[in-house]
């Protein structure tokens, strides 16, 4: 009797196992749960660098899943992915014999692969050549800190540091600064309002929302020596006096985004602080809004136009909110943009800056905790520059920026 039972059990077990095998083969086979994406990379016209060996990263902004691959000799990276909706990014730098640095980066459109689609998906990723400007955004402290006395977040002390990363003198004169619309990165798989119609690709220009700032001077009044930096803040006062964990932004030589008429809710700066001029403003706000969670900041030049001409040429009504004049923007052409930083609150957020400007994103664990994002030092370049610190600038914040637990000015 016992043997019968055992053998019966064995037979059943075997049967079950064979069924399971079938199940695995039929329902969980690679073809059933995944698809192959072939990303073909292409060079911009006039450049002839090798297409093989380039890293390609596929990211699903909804789930955060990432898959990576390397291109073969024909410039194709075949990457097997789980079903989802992916964006491929790739970038690389080349230094030619004459020591000039080229940065290439690119992003594909969003690709959806579902069980109903073809098993193999072909995509093309066109590299853009991006510039490494002299002036870069070195640090962006936007989340604010925690006041240990009130136990509440304090974010009136947001600041930006610009840095001359080159070995030549740069000039701040007529340099412009703005934040991209929307104030916070689009979330839940939503796209920016500013994509090319019918695609997920961002437009060739970036929307500057609500306030647009310009440095005074129109020539060589405000030089920035190699390795020198400019601290720009919204409220150029000593915040440390009231919040011990904050920073002193009221030092002579610092810059303030301040206008007594347009930013009535900003504090009047300390004497000795220079003013960045607000040259355009929409809406009713009395304060320049810089998201504490996920801002996108960029610096640009007007390309030789007068301010009024520049406004006239770039002023655009937001197509998705035609009834809200506060969302009107200036569309800044990507070629005028010198540097930009895209900040996300989650890896699943959607981009606002084009790949040539920032092919990645920086991120802090949350607002009101004192975090700051700071550019990494390019050790090789710094050594070569003879002690002048050179920061990494590949136009990809994911690579170039690191997280600081405290703003760099905290102890200054």
């Amino acid at each position, binding site marked *: 009797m016992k043997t019968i039972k055992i053998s019966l059990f064995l037979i059943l077990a075997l049967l079950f196992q064979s069924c399971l095998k079938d199940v695995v083969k039929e329902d969980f086979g690679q073809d059933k749960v995944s698809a192959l994406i072939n990303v073909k990379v292409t060079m911009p016209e006039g450049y002839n660098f090798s297409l093989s060996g380039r890293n390609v990263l596929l990211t699903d902004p909804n789930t955060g899943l990432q898959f990576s691959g390397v291109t073969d000799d024909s410039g194709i990276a075949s990457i097997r992915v789980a079903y989802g909706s992916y964006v491929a990014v790739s970038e690389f730098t080349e230094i030619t014999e004459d020591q000039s640095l080229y940065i290439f980066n690119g992003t594909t459109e969003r690709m959806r692969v579902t069980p109903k689609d073809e098993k193999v998906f072909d995509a093309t990723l066109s590299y853009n050549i991006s510039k490494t400007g002299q002036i870069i955004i070195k640090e962006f402290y936007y989340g604010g800190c925690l006041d240990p006395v*009130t136990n*509440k977040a304090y974010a009136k002390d947001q600041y930006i540091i610009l840095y001359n990363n080159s070995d030549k003198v740069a000039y701040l004169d007529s340099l412009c600064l703005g934040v991209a619309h929307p104030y916070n990165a689009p979330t839940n798989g939503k796209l920016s309002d500013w994509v090319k119609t019918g695609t997920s690709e961002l437009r060739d220009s970036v929307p500057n929302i609500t306030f647009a700032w310009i440095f005074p001077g129109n020539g060589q009044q405000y030089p920035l020596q190699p390795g020198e930096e400019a601290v720009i803040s919204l409220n150029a006062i000593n915040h440390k006096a*009231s919040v011990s964990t904050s920073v002193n932004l009221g030092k*002579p030589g610092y810059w303030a985004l301040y206008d*007594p008429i347009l930013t*009535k809710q900003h*504090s009047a700066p300390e*004497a000795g*602080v220079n003013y960045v001029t607000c040259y355009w403003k929409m809406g009713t706000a009395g304060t320049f809004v810089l998201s504490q969670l996920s801002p996108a900041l960029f610096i640009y030049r007007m390309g030789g136009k007068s301010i009024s001409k520049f406004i006239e040429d770039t002023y655009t009504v937001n197509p998705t909110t035609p009834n809200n004049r506060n969302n009107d923007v200036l569309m800044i052409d990507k070629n005028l943009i010198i540097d930009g930083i895209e900040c996300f609150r989650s890896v699943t957020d959607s981009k606002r800056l084009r790949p040539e400007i920032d092919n990645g994103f920086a991120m802090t664990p949350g607002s009101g905790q004192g975090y700051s994002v700071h550019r990494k030092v390019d050790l090789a370049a710094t050594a070569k520059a003879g002690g002048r610190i050179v920061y990494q600038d590949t136009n990809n914040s994911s690579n170039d920026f690191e997280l600081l637990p405290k703003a760099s000015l905290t102890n200054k």
Partner: protein
Amino acid sequence: MKKLLVLLLLSIVIVSKSSYALAQERVALDGKVMLKESQEPIPYAHVFIKELNLWGFSNDQGLFKISGIIPGTYTLEATALGYQKFSMPVTIEKPISGFKIQLLEENLTLKDVTVTAKAGSSMNSSSRVDKRAIEHLQATSLADVMQLMPGNVVKNPSLNTKNVITIRSINPTDAINARGVGLMVNGTKVSNDAQGFLDSQNASSGYSQDLMDFRSISTDNIESVEVLKGVLSAEYGDVTSGAIIVTTKAGRTPYEIRVKSDPNTKALSFGKGFSLGSRRGNLNVDVDYARSFKQWISPVDIFNRTTLGLTYSNVFDLNNRPLRFNIRLSGYTTGNSVTSDPDVSKEDFTKSKNNSATLAIYGNWQINKPWITGLNYNISGSYERSDFNKFVVSNQLPLPTTNSKTEGIDWGMLTQTNDRRDQHIEEIPLYFNAKISANLNKSAGGTLFKTMVGVEYNVKGNNGRGEYYTGAAPQYFRERSYKEIPFMTDISLFAEEKFSIPVGSNKSSLDIMVGARMNKMIIEGYNYNPTLDPRSNIKYTIIAPRRSGLVRELALKGGWGIMQKLPSLGLLYPDPNYEDFALFQYRDGSNAMALIQTKITDNKLPYNLKPNKSYNSEIGIDITLGKVEANITYFNERVRDGFTPNGEFSPYEVNYYNLVNYAGADPKYENGKMWVKNQTTKEYEELGYTTVTEFKAYKRPDNRGQQNKWGIEYDFDFGTISPINTSVIVSGAYMRTKNYNTGEYQLATIASDPIDPKQKLPYIAIFEGTSDLNIGTSRERFSTNLNLITRLPSIRMIITFTTQCIWMENNWNEYDSGKIYSEGANGEPIYGDYNNKNNLVTLFRDPISYKDKEGNVRPFSDYHTTTDNNLKRRLNMLRQSTNNSFYFMTTGFDPYFMANVRLTKELGNTATLSFYANNFTNSRPRMINRSRPNARPIVKNTPIYFGAELKITL
């Protein structure tokens, strides 16, 4: 208007006089009120001849007497606390004595206990809810009782948010309607018009701060609630939507202790009516305590209520000219406390505390003279003190501020960086109300005349300190004491004549009531003319109630009248507007300074804010077919002169001084000029400036609000299905409301000028009605409540099943025909019919005109014709637009249903246990909005909710 009133009063007097000449002899009725089972006498029972307003009270031996009765056939009613109401027709042709009235003890052994709203006794529509129904409902506040009204939907009780009452309204928070609801407690008017000033300036869409909060009214001491609708008797003033008449208990009752509990609320109450001995009257004591949590899992938002009431009642001169005398001292204290999540902040909190005391003297005197039958009197005064306290600790920027109350330029201060902000809003509203009315009954040729004339006097004001801060205050805050606001007085005269004319011989009759009310409002700073409200109701009883036949009762009724609601004090005296401009700021280490220019606009209205005026009419039919009783009423109410916010603007020219950003500038302001030390020479130099013209906007209330409403209320009582002891009542309503504004609305966006951002947009838009794309909003609802009431006298239990059916619930935006357009490829307007369509284009509505800083008004058509690009860009800021494709479609849902159950069980004579469950099947359908099929579905019905109550009677 005055003449008209005088004429009316005269005519009433003449009618009375002439009827006096024809007056017949008066007779008296005396008898005894006793308990049916034991024949025990019942003292302090109120015996009442309904049609004549004549009454008597039984003494300790149960004996009563009513004199002055004009011979005829009337309804005799008798009530006593704890006994079932007695009602029967009596014909009194000659004096009757020894009339026996036998009352039954009210408990669930009776087969006909009423637990729903019943039609009241007034000529206009009314619903009456008695103590039993309130107990069965387990109401915690008066607002809960309203769900028994036909057409109202079930709402879960909550004491943690303001309880507002509306009458005949789909929108439960409709401010126009809620403001027009009058509350009378024992005939004493309860008002809220001298409080709730905050936000009257900042209101963006309608005013709601001054609406009465019914949370403070507990229900345990209530004997009955009657809701008057339609065209009210002329004795009720300062109402537009209707009135709630609350009668509290007065008389002998046993000890009554109640414990009530639901997930968010716990309540305890005690009541007793003591007899102070023969002829010494009675003393009723009621105490109630309730505590409610917003969320039962978290004790951070708590509401507490304690109410106390003492009522002394007595009747003097019982056998001759009885004088009913009541004096009630009542008070409450309510408190709301919100503390912060301790993980976020240890110090922040919000508290509010209201203490109130009211003393009311009321009653009536049956004089029975040839020229006066009776006199009603009401005198009351109330004092309330409320303190709202909010404490927030935070770090702020040092910003320029001043609290100067004089115009000019002066050095100001800076706000504190370590901001410990302790905000208080203190209100001390005071109310006084006195009302006396006299009535006279006459009969001539079978017609009964009832005349009423009266006068009412109201005074209200507020002695509170208003909003103030101890420690840090917000930027540019000014304290304004409510004591600066004058008291408001209003005097009303009212007169009403009611004729009851027999028609034919088969008891058919025609009742006509004609009345008028004149009101004069007196407040310093305004000069109001008297207003006159004519009111009339008519009822034609074709078939008087009878016990056989197919049609057992048939009556047609109708009414028409005007009712008005006076503006509240806060609306008449908005805060003055202080405009502050920081002309120059300088910060050099610890030395920080700000030069501030202050401009003041006295905001007292340059016009009289008119009372809200409602034109009410209704037509109804009462019919009994076999055992089915039906009441159907059509009503139409049009509110005019509703309070609406409007914008008012003045341009200011301000000189902003140039920025100075070097240390050691030592700025000084002398002789109207700004001086700073030159950075190099260290000599004082005059500082340059930029002149900027800014529009500053402030809100002002005006009378552009309009509401058109009509509906049909129905109530079918199918009687009792005997085998299962279950009665079936179907009630409900169809209502349709349209809200819109007339007149010109001024809108300034106060946005930066798109051409020169340093300046504000130099134009103001003037819209017709509203600055929306629509010209009004409408809604309609059709609902039915099916009540199955099962009475089980053998086990002393009563169960009510209510199924609430919402057949239709629609909202839509009113289309501005011919004025809505989309844009063509070149920006040219394409006018078309976009109503009731899914429009995949952006739609625009233009202002009618625009106004510049000099006050010049130009038609807005300039936008479409101008070649000036800058003008076009500026005017573009003023257009209204939408890209919601469904904007002009009707949003609505398919029918949905909800089931509720209530149960009351008596355990012997001492304990009563009640239980209810709202939406007990927890039906929360996710419904698709018809106009937006792809949008996220909306969850309908209230969440499941339940509660229980235990009453102990000793």
